[in-house]
């Protein structure tokens, strides 16, 4: 078994970085596996349906459909979805809007790998009854 991760960000730079953070890491005995990436909200919702990931890292500001809109759609599909928002400095209000919409937590750019994994681990602990 692996922990399936969906990375949503319009910048390849960011997607690559986040993927690297998960690369080779484990949650307990399970490897993290980036199963899909999406460049915008619409793609994110599609990829979510397709892969049913355990964790979604969701950028907020994206073309086509914003991260918050995508989050709402995903929560509509799966109320137990583990969506972590990727925010930047100064986006407090958007983050809070996302939390209201069901985001489990958030990480802040520039990402510190330790903090990202910390947040993910906590959410998995919580939702998997660890």
């Amino acid at each position: 078994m692996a922990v399936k991760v969906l990375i949503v960000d319009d910048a390849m730079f960011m997607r690559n970085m986040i993927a690297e953070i998960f690369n080779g890491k484990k949650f307990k005995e399970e490897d993290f596996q980036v199963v899909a990436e999406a460049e915008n909200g619409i793609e994110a919702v599609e990829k979510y349906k397709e892969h049913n990931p355990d964790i979604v890292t969701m950028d907020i500001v994206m073309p086509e459909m914003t991260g918050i809109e995508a989050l709402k759609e995903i929560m509509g599909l799966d109320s137990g979805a583990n969506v972590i928002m990727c925010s930047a400095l100064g986006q407090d209000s958007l983050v809070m809007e996302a939390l209201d919409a069901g985001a489990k937590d958030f990480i802040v750019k520039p990402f510190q790998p330790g903090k990202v994994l910390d947040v993910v681990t906590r959410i998995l602990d919580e939702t998997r009854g660890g």
Partner: protein
Amino acid sequence: MDMSKYRDLFISESREHVQGMSTCILVLEKEPASEQSINELFRHAHSVKGMSASMGYSKIAELSHHLEDMMDVVRKGQLAVSSSVTDILLEGVDALENMVDGVEQDKNLEEIDISSLLLKVLNATEGKVGAAAVKEEQADPDPKPGSASPSAEAAGDRPEVKPQPDPVHIDKEFHPVGGNDLEVRFEIAPDSLVPAARAYLAVKKLESLGQLHHTDPSVEEIKAGNYTDHVTAWVGGVKKDEILKTLQSLAEMGQISVSEPDSEIAQPENSVGEVSKPVDQIVVKSKKDSGPPAGSAKTVRISTVLLDTFINLVGELIVTKSRLNDLLTGSGSRDVDQVLTRVDHLISGLHSEVMKVRMMPLETVTQRLPRVVRDLALKRKKKVSLEVIGADIELDRAILEELGDPLIHILRNAVDHGLEDTEGRGASGKDATGRIVLRAFRERDMVYVEIIDDGRGMDLEAIKTKAVEKGVISRDQATIITDEETVILVCRPGFSTAAEVTDVSGRGVGMDVVQSTVDSLGGSLSIESHTGEGTTFTLRLPLTVAIVKMLLVSLLDHTFAVPITRVARTIRITREELNESQGRQYLNLDEELVSVFDLGELLKIERHTDGRSVFNVVLVEATNRTVGLVVDSVVGQVDIVVKPVCYPIQYLKRYSGMTVLGDGRIVPILDLGNLF
């Protein structure tokens, strides 16, 4: 995490975003209310901020952060887009571009001074934000005194308490002694970048556990970003341990304490030390294994240097293969022939795939042109619109890299000289806004780029006079040359005056440079001008330059290469078909007179052709006309790799480059733009 490997990706993606910003700003100049452009601009600035912060380029992050803030204010309708706003934004884009260039050139970004720009951005943002904020406050006439607090309502309701001078007293007032609520005090880790959002998450968690009766600061205040150093919350219907466990499971928490209603002293529960331990371990682990990122990306970005190496190797392979062909042809072995044919197929397959990778849309060059035209038009106080058609046409990256400066120069000429000013246009009954269209289209294996203006057209007599003055042509020549030949005189070296030379990235570009650049790419330039109606510059370009087909021709035992893209056809003519007029030789071809030159004479290679009755002529596309070139023989077509030449051979103006054939012979490539 080692970030250096992301540097190139950062540079290329940032540039895309910065370019995107520029495009949006130009749209906003025309349509200040374009919501799409405002949002896009915000997004681009946001992306640059995120990436630059990740890379540690704090100056870029700072500027993009402030630009993003400014756009946010615009987005909220608190700042209207005016020309001063777009000017500041454009200045911001320039500075970002400059700093990204700085990253590429390993410059110290700290030496770049953006302080005055930052001030402008901040003033634009804050000035208007302040005004709007005042308005909002005035619009709220009822500040609701604390005594009217609806706090003690059902669980889940958010208490609406407005800021009070001394919140502690207020808290005590509606939190009667002896109630069952627990007093929870928590801090957010000091290194948290968005503490208010963290605090909000914690409050939401408390809310989900039991009845959250009150918080200080209030939930609304926290939502508005007012978190200073800690939050106190009163929660009922939940056990102390449960609260502690929940809050400790959150990221970036600092001190947490939960006190019973009657207890005087809150007992601090350490969370920071314990919780952060495993995090450190993970960090260490992540430093150890720095394997490649998980491989689910559909596309990769690779260095252009690597791409060039690939194409060069493929080129060498092609040349070597043709040498192998020469050596083994007629070996008599069918096996050898079969293997050769197979290798042939494989190499051409490899070639075409590698070429595909090198192709990029013309857009990469044209997207900066609207900005150039805008700035120039402003300077010249002219109204100009630029329309770009066919920007999705793909060309070899090497061609695109060379194309920017010539296009900018032609556009500059159009704005400076081609288009009349508003009064002039009015007098000629034209629309006040001058129109320039850049149109690209593909025809077989050539790409045409036309720059069409609807200006006054070229003044042929003035060009002739100037050309004679400058010694570019003689007075006699001036009387006989055709209109097409006259127009093209502007491309002759020495014709452009200093005032007509465009300063592009610190070097002068005149029409002569435009022409030689196009020629060196194996393309050709033509100009068509109609008095009063405008001028059209047409650049005819090959799709690729790295590995090109050449026609080899010979003179005595010398071999020369002519880019096949410039060859119309080869013919054999008899001496009788050659006409002579005023010392120039002509050939009547399909009702058209074509100038004919002897390659030997042009290159000063002495040989006797007097006794010949039949001549081999290569018809080539020179600037604005077709020209016949007499050679001894036509050898055939080859694929070659153009080799750059260095000092002093680069100054041989009749050759645009050199190539090496499979047998090691060095063959010069004729520069058709400078030959006649």
